[in-house]
């Protein structure tokens, strides 16, 4: 007797929630945040573990990270319905003091962004000073123990920046996002891929071939792991995925992200002359397209429910 429409049990309790209307601003921010975090993570590793020849590429990486967060950060503010109050996330408006809740992913993210900007800002300043585009004394931030500390800061805040965007989604109650804890790892891996791709795309000529090969290697690791994580998400919440990623979303994910953005670049990195001299930058461009489509699919497919 029960209304037929209501007899259909939803695949998850998350179906009873409402969409926050997070649209393109958030998609683009998550993409730029992933690039920024991934580039800083890889550049920090190159600085800590690599040698002098890697420095050419780390300079490009830190600058990419800084520019990406400087462009992406304001998108978060613009997306607020009361953007003039964005500082309420940073400072307690009633009692004063910093506004921080470790169990709120957005609150955590605000402080991650602030810490990230400081570390990457110093590393980028040192990079510009290295090439004479900034006062010479800024080079101090890229040398010795201080340089190592800043590189470590870039690694930690970079991975946190790339990953927390997934934590914001996992820490919600929306279909797909709140159904899987694996989205954080997925976005972290995708961020590392995208950050590396941006470094290769903009620095494959200037960078030492050994550095470029190392980044390609890291991208291959993260790409394989990305596929594994996507498979785990599909397997663990299949009842949700088959509804949310039904139709166009599933096709974009499969072909746009899986084939075009992950598998094809891996093949191209393995055969660097397959498309002539432009093979490597084309592969990097495809990784970036795949990273963007991944975020668009994950965010917008759930928003459509």
């Amino acid at each position, binding site marked *: *007797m*029960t*209304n037929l429409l*209501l007899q259909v*049990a939803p695949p998850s309790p998350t179906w*009873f*929630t*409402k969409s*926050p*209307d*997070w649209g393109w601003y958030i998609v683009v921010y998550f993409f730029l945040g992933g690039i920024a975090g991934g580039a800083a*993570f*890889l550049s920090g*590793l190159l600085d800590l*573990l*690599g040698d002098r020849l890697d420095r050419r590429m780390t300079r490009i990486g830190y600058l990419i990270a800084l520019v990406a967060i400087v462009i992406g950060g304001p998108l978060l503010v613009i*997306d*607020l*319905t*009361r*953007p003039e*109050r*964005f500082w*309420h*996330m940073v400072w*307690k*408006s*009633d009692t004063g003091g910093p*506004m921080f*809740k470790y169990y709120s*992913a*957005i609150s955590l993210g*605000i402080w991650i962004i602030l810490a990230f900007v400081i570390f990457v800002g110093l590393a980028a300043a040192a990079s510009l000073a290295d090439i004479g585009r900034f006062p010479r004394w800024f080079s101090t931030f890229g040398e010795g123990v201080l340089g190592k500390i800043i590189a470590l800061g870039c*690694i*930690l805040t970079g*991975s946190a920046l790339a*990953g927390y965007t*997934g*934590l*914001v989604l*996992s*820490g*919600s*109650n*929306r279909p797909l*996002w*709140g159904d899987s*804890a*694996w989205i*954080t*790892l997925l976005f*972290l*891996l995708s961020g*590392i891929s995208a950050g590396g791709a941006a470094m290769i795309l903009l620095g494959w000529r200037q960078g030492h071939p*050994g550095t470029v*090969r*190392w980044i390609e*290697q*890291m991208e291959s*690791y993260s790409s394989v792991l990305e596929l594994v994580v996507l498979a785990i998400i599909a397997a663990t919440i299949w009842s949700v995925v088959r509804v949310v990623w039904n139709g166009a979303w599933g096709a974009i994910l499969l072909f746009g992200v899986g084939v075009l953005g992950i598998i094809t670049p891996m093949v191209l990195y393995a055969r660097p002359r397959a498309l002539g001299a432009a093979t490597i930058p084309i592969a990097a461009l495809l990784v970036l397209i795949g990273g963007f489509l991944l975020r668009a699919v994950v965010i917008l497919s759930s928003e459509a429910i």
Partner: protein
Amino acid sequence: MAVPAQATPVATPTGSAQSTEPAAGSQLAPAGAFPAAPMGFFTDTTICIGCKACEVACKNWNGLSSDSFTLSGDSYDNTRELNGENWRHVQFIEQFPEDRVGGRWLLMSDVCKHCVHAGCLEVCPTGAIIRTEYDTVVIQADVCNGCRDCIAACPFGVIEINPVSRTAMKCTLCYDRLQSGLEPACSKACPTESIKFGTLEELHGIANERVQQLNAQARDAGQAENAYLYGADDSIVGGLNAFFLLVDQPEVYHLPAHAKLPSKELPTASALGIGGTLGMAALGAVAFRKRRMDGFAEAARDERAAEETGEWEDAR
């Protein structure tokens, strides 16, 4: 907006008069306020008549707009949903077979549940969402900046952006009225006492008695005993301060049978993120080692080639 001139004695859930004197020693409550104690709503859906007096009273007291009102074509439900400007929503659920014989209406005045473990309060990054001395959950409109994380976090789909204030809004359980010793506008207006207001202790007692009464009646009539309480115990997000008496599955009333907190996945998600960071850093180190070994091998190859061709000796 109708604003009563002064605090008046309010009807308790049992219909008797109750003093509005503040509790002795209550430092939070202003003069004339209800004593600080967990309070909420018990909504008995079996006696809701769908008059929507609660919706009107809520909009009237809270000065909420009705700009988005249109005819829905869905039974008598033109309110459609709880959102930033509808803090009460009377659901009209028609359960009729094709021949329209022997069916029934289910009516329920839905509202924010004021969860004991509130997802919205958990995620709010500005501190705009607070828990009051009445254990209710209130969004401070002058602090909210509209990030909308609370909308995605609420397991019941209660919160949305109010088009006038452009901030997230929902039922406050008439916090301002409670602080003046007045019961919430909706329960005050409810003509059948389907919405009962009081302390949780009182409400749980009344609700349990009502469930027993309804199930006894069903038993006597040879029908299924299907009355139960939704959210009265701690099985749903630690308990709901606004709980319901239902006679069908929760999903029929658009309520999740197993609501979860948004923070449920956070520990696992964080651990996976940290593990991923360490794993990728370790793989990075492995890739460096491989590069170094390849470099050594390449140098050794060059050295051997030089020795074989005699260049090595020449070079020395």
